[in-house]
């Protein structure tokens, strides 16, 4: 007997789908539509994220000028038809710099979150799985690591590593891993209560096999949510560090760095230099937070109501 598979979306609506690729696409679209209908704010966040990714990927084609191009006779021009967001004290187009800045934010954000979540999964799953002395030792180190205020550790780390894109990714990634590993460890311990893990062990599966094939796929939803929310936090952290002069070195346009440095004294005459980069940071982080919140509601109701910045 062939049954017609009925999928149930996490928000309870039934979505019928038949096997075969055209209807599969339709089902995906239907999922997407349901998401937009039930989580309008999340969809808005997703849209903002899409725009950000487009800007980051196609910056050289979207920006009318190069990020370090000095326009002759164009110092501190007010926003207008030629320069949408005005120009800065060195005569560079602010709009172009904001567009290029998106690629800095996206690179640092995705790089750091990728590193953080790989480390968090590694530490969290092994710590939850093996337990015992290993768990206790690892958790004490995580404790110590977490008792530093975020900005303080990251400042010290960036001072050690020196400014630069790769170092920023490294520092933010390592730091984000500690908090994430706690959540993954908790999820792992709860997944381990399931009988299928016991069954796998009874069948003679080794440690590695159980962790890779049974635990990891089941904590994947948690990791995805951590990653989405972590992206916003990483972008925010990058901008704060660049603001303090420990992030991406000039002339490369980081949104945070655009708000600080030698340009600060010129902002009284050209306030647009201060407004746009900050608005870009806020909008980007807002998008990731909205999307992350909605994804969390849909994928993992247990995590609801946690609130707060995750990587801290």
């Amino acid at each position: 007997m062939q049954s017609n598979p009925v999928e149930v979306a996490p928000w309870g609506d039934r979505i019928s789908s038949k096997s075969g690729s055209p209807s599969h696409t339709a089902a995906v679209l239907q999922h997407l539509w349901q998401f937009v209908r039930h989580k309008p704010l999340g969809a808005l966040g997703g849209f903002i994220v899409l725009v950000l990714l487009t800007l980051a990927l196609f910056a050289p084609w979207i920006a009318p000028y190069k990020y370090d191009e000095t326009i002759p006779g164009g110092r501190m021009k007010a926003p207008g038809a030629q320069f949408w967001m005005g120009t800065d004290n060195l005569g560079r187009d602010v709009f172009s710099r904001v567009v290029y800045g998106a690629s800095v934010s996206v690179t640092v954000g995705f790089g750091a979150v990728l590193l953080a979540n790989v480390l968090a999964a590694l530490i969290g799953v092994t710590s939850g799985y093996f337990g015992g002395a290993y768990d206790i030792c690892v958790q004490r180190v995580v404790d110590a690591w977490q008792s530093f205020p975020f900005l303080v550790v990251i400042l010290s780390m960036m001072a050690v590593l020196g400014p630069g894109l790769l170092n920023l990714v490294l520092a933010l990634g390592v730091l984000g891993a500690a908090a994430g590993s706690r959540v993954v460890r908790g999820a792992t311990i709860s997944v381990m209560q399931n009988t299928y893990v016991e069954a796998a062990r009874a069948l003679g599966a080794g440690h590695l096999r159980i962790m890779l094939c049974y635990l990891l796929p089941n904590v994947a939803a948690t990791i995805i949510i951590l990653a989405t929310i972590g992206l916003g936090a990483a972008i925010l952290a990058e901008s704060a560090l660049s603001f303090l002069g420990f992030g991406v070195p000039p002339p490369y346009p980081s949104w945070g760095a655009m708000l600080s440095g030698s340009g600060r004294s010129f902002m009284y005459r050209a306030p647009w230099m201060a407004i746009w980069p900050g608005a870009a940071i806020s909008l980007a982080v807002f998008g990731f937070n909205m999307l992350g919140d909605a994804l969390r509601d849909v994928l993992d109701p247990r995590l609801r109501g946690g609130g707060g910045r995750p990587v801290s």
Partner: protein
Amino acid sequence: MKRYVFRRLLVAIPSLLIASLIVFSLPRLLPGDVVQLMLEEKAYGKDLDDLRAKLGLNRPMYIQYVEWLGQVARGDLGESLWTRRPVLEELARRLPISLELGVLALAFAIVIAVPIGVVAAIRQDTLADYAMRSMAILGLSVPGFWIATLCVLLPAIWWGWSPPIQFTAFSVSPWAHFAQFLLPAFILGIASAAAIMRLTRGTLLEVLRQDYVRTAWAKGLRERVVVLKHSLKNALIPVVTVLGIQVAQILGGTVIFESIFGLPGMGRFLFDAINQRDYPVIQGVNLLIVSVVVLMNLIVDAFYAFLDPRIRY
């Protein structure tokens, strides 16, 4: 209860020790030797080795670490490599400023967040709820240093007014002293307020669905009594727990805000010390900050048991 606090203190010791090792070794990895810097700028010694020996930086790291731990245990944090003033003395002068900023920021956060969280919860899924939740996410997304920059910049452009950036001591003018903290504390508190508001809303929603709340409604109690007296008290228990995390958050934020608003507190002290590679100062400030955070979490945990009698340790 006593046993629990004692046990927690014991567990905190290894964490603090590991943290102290991190605190000690991180600044020593800084590129750009402090000795080189000092020789170039201030000509404190004959040559590199001479100065290194003077500062006690020529011995192996582990000996320096053990010695430093011993000093710390005796309540001595060493002295600044640059100004030669005892770190502890400097901290004693600067800590109150950061504490004032931090406590005020936390107070702002709680006063704003809890009422908004309550309203958002009892009006769940209304327009007001959506608006407040969006505002909260926005509060988490907007970088504090940007708002601070705009708050200094825009009034200056529009009305020619700017917040004071010259520090006024309490003894000079109590009111001016207090007033200079208001704006930075408010901005610093925004992110924490957003986090607390979301948590308050979430936990209150959970509590409002409990049986005993239905009973309270059934008895015919007024909404105010049900929400404020029966529900909110229990909903605030998890909120107390995140206050510990928020303290760490706010302490970190002081680094930026003290620099922007010209407050001579601990955060700016640390920032300058990192730039100058002043090891004893970096170690001292970091150690103090970590101790405050660990202690705060301990207090929060103990308080948690006190608030919720069901919790037995």
